[in-house]
């Protein structure tokens, strides 16, 4: 069974639109970590955020915000006022405390921001 599901394969928006990337996860561990990475066309995955399972506070960093809801096993990522530079593939990942260094990645969501 897929531990991390990113149902949106590809999303296209026009610059300045807000966009939300969905991530649903599955785990039996009570302690786990959730991540978002950005992969621009250059290829290198860039770390965006890590949350642990005990911290359900939403996070905001500039135009980026994350909504962590344990009740729905979701960790969604919103970009406000999107820009062309936000065009990339975004990956959500899960790490469980029982195997701390093993990541389960979602299949990724490709975001196209058009001018």
């Amino acid at each position: 069974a897929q531990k991390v599901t990113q149902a949106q394969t590809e999303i296209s928006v026009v610059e300045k639109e807000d966009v939300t990337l969905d991530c649903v996860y599955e785990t039996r561990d009570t302690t786990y970590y959730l991540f978002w990475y950005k992969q621009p066309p250059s290829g290198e995955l860039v770390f965006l955020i890590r949350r642990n399972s005990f911290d359900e506070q939403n996070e905001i960093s500039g135009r980026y915000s994350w909504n962590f809801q344990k009740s729905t096993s979701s960790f969604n990522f919103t970009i406000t006022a999107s820009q062309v530079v936000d065009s990339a593939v975004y990956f959500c990942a899960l790490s469980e405390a029982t195997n701390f260094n093993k990541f389960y990645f979602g299949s990724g969501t490709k975001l196209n921001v058009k001018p």
Partner: protein
Amino acid sequence: DVKVTQSSRYLVKRTGEKVFLECVQDMDHENMFWYRQDPGLGLRLIYFSYDVKMKEKGDIPEGYSVSREKKERFSLILESASTNQTSMYLCASSLPEDNEQFFGPGTRLTVL
């Protein structure tokens, strides 16, 4: 800043060739990882090393081996490349007590 480098950005090899993909990190990280990335499948772990000469199989180790002779270097070896190993290969590293992984730029391998 952590720097993870990979020896080639693009590589073209023939079926049956032995292929070496090299990864070097400069932050003294104990953990190093090799992933392959395929459309619709995300990143899948091939092998993981938590120390010099130590390795563990990931989810898809078949057809691959690894070598970690020095702490900073982790090599992925395709003993006899096949067309189904055409993919993007990503290397990553991390500290054992911190599971944030730092990634290299990737090697896009094409096997003809």
